[in-house]
């Protein structure tokens, strides 16, 4: 108690940074052992369950390997990767996936943050609202795609019919036009996942030390100042988490695209995972599908690294060194 009040400003300097290379203090061996054993089970588990299949997938990607035509299996080096970049459809899919991910995650961050701020105040109303807001995320994504396809159809969809007849958007429906289809899919993604984005951010907001916020209020800072000077800096780890998580998942978008447009019209909404699932689970072309999977991992890793750099920079700028 006394400690709290005497160190009211203290947490500022204690604020965790994404630059987690804080100077080590003297630490007992028992603490180190304890932490080691806390971490070991999860690390072991992931190594056993996760890394083996992944390594196999990596290995397969250098083969022409089709489960349906096992006789034709052959080591082909990087040919699968080369084939991806030589294919016009696949190149389009890569571009689409990036456009989809960047737009959709940015929108979700913005709306998710707004939503989290709105829900921050602890009240029964907000708790119930949050529970209901999570409903879209509980519906199997494939079904989400089906719902929107049914609603947006120009001929008898509840929304699409009136839009098309009012002359808003293409007469053939929003999902049939190469100019609008990807945007519709982005909005579907936002609909489904913005509440989850808000949930992560809200958990971050709720973890903020209350006294720091109080201190800001006591200092007479305006709401905007409190937001930019206190909340935002402290929220950077949560924002990073939410961004990385959604980027990873958005980059792997598949279900909603698969059922609404199948990647069309004319590849306008084709994504990497639609290609990969088609190759892997319809043609059982494991080599090629694994190569797409590995490229996906590579792209996601690059984006995560960029995000990390950006957030760390922001951290340094806002929180000082």
């Amino acid at each position, binding site marked *: 108690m006394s400690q709290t009040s005497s160190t009211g400003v203290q947490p500022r300097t204690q604020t965790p940074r994404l630059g987690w290379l804080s100077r080590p203090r003297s630490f007992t061996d028992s603490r180190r052992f304890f932490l080691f054993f806390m971490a070991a089970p999860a690390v072991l588990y*992931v190594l056993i369950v996760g890394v083996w299949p992944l390594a196999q997938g990596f290995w397969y990607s250098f083969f022409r390997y089709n489960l349906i035509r096992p006789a034709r299996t052959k080591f082909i080096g990087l040919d699968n990767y080369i084939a991806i970049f030589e294919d016009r459809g696949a190149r389009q899919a890569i571009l689409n996936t990036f456009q989809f991910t960047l737009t959709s995650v940015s929108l979700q961050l913005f709306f998710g943050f707004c939503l989290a701020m709105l829900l921050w105040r602890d009240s029964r109303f907000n708790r119930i609202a949050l*529970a209901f807001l999570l409903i*879209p995320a*509980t519906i199997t994504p494939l079904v989400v795609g089906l719902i929107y396809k049914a609603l947006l159809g120009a001929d008898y969809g509840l929304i699409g019919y*009136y839009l098309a007849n009012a002359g808003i958007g293409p007469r053939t429906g929003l999902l049939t036009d190469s100019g609008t289809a990807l945007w519709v899919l982005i909005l579907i993604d936002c609909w489904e996942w913005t509440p989850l984005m808000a949930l992560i951010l809200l958990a971050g907001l709720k973890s903020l030390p209350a006294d720091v916020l109080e201190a800001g209020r006591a200092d007479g800072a305006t709401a905007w100042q409190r937001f930019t000077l206190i909340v935002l800096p402290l929220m950077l780890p949560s924002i990073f988490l939410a961004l990385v998580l959604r980027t990873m998942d958005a980059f792997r978008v598949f279900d909603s695209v698969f059922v609404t447009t199948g990647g069309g019209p004319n590849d306008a909404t084709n994504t990497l995972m639609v290609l990969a699932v088609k190759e892997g689970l319809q043609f059982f072309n494991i080599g090629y599908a694994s190569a797409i999977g590995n490229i996906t991992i590579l792209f996601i890793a690059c984006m995560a690294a960029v995000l990390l750099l950006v957030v760390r920079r922001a951290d340094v700028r806002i929180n000082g060194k």
Partner: protein
Amino acid sequence: MAQVSGRQVFAERTAVLLITIVMLLPVVWLITTAYKPSNQIFSIPPRLDFQPTLDQFRNIFGYFDVVSLLRSSVAISAGTTVLSLLLGVPCGYALARSRSRYATGFAYFFLAIRMVPAIASLIPFYLMMRDIGLLGSWWAVVIINTMLNCAFVTWMMFSYFRALPRDMEEAALTDGCTQLGAFFKVAVPAARSGIIACVLFCVMFSWNDFLYPMFLTTLDSKPLSVALLTAYGTKDITWGSLGALAHFSTIPIVLMALFLNRYFVQGATNGVQ
């Protein structure tokens, strides 16, 4: 977060209410298909009114063993969530508190695991489950989902624990608290909101994941998410069954979220519980 004007609260609530309603409209459409006669689900021009019927529910109880589907969904989600938290929360804590330079490396390792597209590991994993005889059981799904979710929980908790000042635990340790005691009595309660968020996440991810269960379960062990797809025939989509089944897949999650959200409160102030 005290002393705010009633007007501000009112404005906030109105906004939340409006957003919630707009977000729920597509779901409401899906749910209502369950009460519509099949020939009234679509019409030209589209209409909102219909004569309510319970036929669709009768149909799905004829086609599906809904109780078994629910049981599988619950078992898979609960198993995944419990295991993921047991593995992930301590690990996230350890990585956040560790000063070893390998800690960061491990944190990124978990992030990398979470990135893996299902398609890359699905078939090797399928064969692995066959070899250890778990194919077709809930365990197969729980094991793979736990792998992905514990990676995620580790990352999430890593972030939240880092955001918590360490002086509290250090004070507790100096006061003679055991290591484990400091973790459970100080660190975990302080990160409560983060943990609740993790629970919600794990449950939802495993509840509506269908690619793994589709591949790994059989008739007796398949969950609702897979059954939902059955309504998606080549020739037709049986919207009524989809809507009726959606009740069973949505309502439990809402109830759970309502329950958990009671604990989803502002975190501890610095040092006081």
